[in-house]
């Protein structure tokens, strides 16, 4: 029981860290307000699920209807999930990132998130509608029994490896000349364009990379909880991750990790111990209110977050105040 609780906590922490690193690349570093982040995670999770599930005509699985059902062994569904996140980013980016002003991008993505959920909920033959997919085979479950402690250790280990890989990739991007261009574009797009950077191409690239990482986070999550339904990827879930990146400090990976540990992990764990008082649903509702307050409070009092992005100054330049 305790091993399960600890493993559960660590795996959720890993998934949230990966999600926040992705959101930080897209939102914190590049300034794209991706209000449909959770859709990319969901696409990764659904893809992983249908790649690892057997066809829906198999006995034991025939209570649900879904497309595909390929019954593929472990690493392939995860890779598929990550790729699906990246593939989704291409058409979405094509619509949203080319011409629109930044605040229009935000509302278009928000609306997309709500609509995608509506469509999947209503299309019940596609991914089993509102009920969602259940009994998703867990990775390596044929080699190790998923109900044992050993399996939990294994899963925590795999998650940790994924976190490290994503962190290395994100760090490489943030510190590369490309990352520098992204920050320049975030600060002043016109100036970045004037020195020969193509903002649309840069945004598309980072949006696709962010989509791949988000898809991977969904793959890891669905592999552990073994089910996925529209109710777990409603648009407010994206707002929690935005709260995390804003609280942690947007624009730097350490801040994103800190935010992931403080908001989705820390905050939800603390409020879990509040006794259930008042009418049913009061505490969850107040949790959401607190998330809203957290965002507004931080944007007002400490817009750079707990760990602000370090200001990068060119050493050889004349000493003067930047901005």
């Amino acid at each position, binding site marked *: 029981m305790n091993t399960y609780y600890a493993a559960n906590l660590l795996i959720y922490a890993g998934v949230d860290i990966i999600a926040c690193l992705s959101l930080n690349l897209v939102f914190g570093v590049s*300034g794209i*307000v991706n*209000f449909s982040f959770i859709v990319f995670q969901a696409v990764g999770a659904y893809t992983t699920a249908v790649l690892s599930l057997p066809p829906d005509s198999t006995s034991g699985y025939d209570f649900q209807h879904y497309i595909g059902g390929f019954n593929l062994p472990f690493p392939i569904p995860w890779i598929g999930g990550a790729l699906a996140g990246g593939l989704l980013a291409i058409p979405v980016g094509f*619509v*949203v990132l080319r*011409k*629109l*002003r*930044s*605040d*229009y991008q*935000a*509302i*278009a993505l*928000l*609306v*997309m998130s*709500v*609509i995608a959920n*509506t*469509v999947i909920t*209503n299309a019940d033959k596609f991914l089993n509608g509102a009920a969602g997919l259940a009994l998703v085979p867990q990775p390596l479950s044929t080699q190790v029994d998923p109900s044992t402690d050993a399996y939990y250790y294994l899963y925590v280990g795999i998650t940790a490896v994924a976190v490290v890989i994503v962190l290395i990739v994100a760090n490489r991007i943030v510190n590369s000349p490309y990352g520098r261009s992204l920050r320049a574009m975030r600060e002043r*797009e*016109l100036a970045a364009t004037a020195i020969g950077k193509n903002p649309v191409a840069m945004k598309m690239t980072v949006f696709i990379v962010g989509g791949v990482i988000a898809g991977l986070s969904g793959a890891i999550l669905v592999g552990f909880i073994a089910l996925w339904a529209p109710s777990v990827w409603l*648009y*407010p879930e994206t*707002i929690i991750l*935005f*709260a995390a990146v*804003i609280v942690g400090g947007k624009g730097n990976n350490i801040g994103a990790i800190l935010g992931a540990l403080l908001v989705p992990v820390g905050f939800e764990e603390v409020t879990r111990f509040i006794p259930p008082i*008042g*009418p049913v*649903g*009061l505490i969850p*509702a*107040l949790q*959401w*209110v607190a*998330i*809203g*307050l957290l*965002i*507004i409070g931080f*944007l*007002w009092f400490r*817009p750079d977050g707990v760990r602000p992005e370090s200001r990068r100054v060119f050493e050889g330049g004349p000493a003067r105040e930047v901005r």
Partner: protein
Amino acid sequence: MDLYLEALGFGLVSMSVIAIAAVGFTMQFGITNMINLAYGEVMISSAYVAYYINRAGISIWIGMLAAAVFGAVFSFLLNRFVYAPFQAKGTSLIGMVIVSLAVSLMIANLLLPIVGYYSVSYENATGDLLHFGPIILTTNQIAIIGVALLLMLVIHGLLRYTRLGKAMRATAANPTLARNCGIPTRRVIDVVWLITGALCGMAGTVAAINSDSFAIANGASFLITVLAAAVLGGAGQPYGAMIGAVLIGVITELSAATWSPQYKEVVAFGILVLVMVLRPQGLLAKRGALAAAG
């Protein structure tokens, strides 16, 4: 053929509801430069105010006026205590969008413990059936169309023929210049939030009258339809929002009649995507989605 005419009848009602909401939303954006994502939640809160008054046995139309007052005061306070301070602090457009989304989340979840999860509906909200050939509408639906026409005329008169309307247009065009010409832009903006809030409150009530039942979750779908109409017409353009409402209203009702009513918002979203790809500045735009973020 009758199917299409019947859908057109519902389209008339739908476009009236959307027009009231979208004009309010687009005026907030055009004049105060604020994409207020909490608009749908203010609509649904106002609809609940009308619901409690209606449940006490009072006519729904009196309830609508109370909802208008509630929406006006609520929007005014929201701007005074949240949006305006952030704008004065120099928060970017993106920052303001995030703030308004956080506000929207808070309103919905503060409302939830008060009104509960279940769908509710107004009493005596339908009225008698009237037949106009194949088009069948209830008296209340006719009244909604009347209210919308009246409000659109009032807004038109306000913007075109009054000093206040002139001041609003000046503030929308260039707030600094307007202030330098002696227009009290702060007070103009306060009035804009009161007026648009009242529109928002009435829109919430008529939207709730027009649907059989409503719940908190409807806030998001209200917002999507309003955004689609406002963006289609050219954000910040009251007349554009009216045109957008007409198109979205008719198209969504036709799609509901011929395809499936579950996908009304999906169709609205499809129109939104098409507009964003083909004509991001909207149908009538002087300013629109194309300009660089300030």
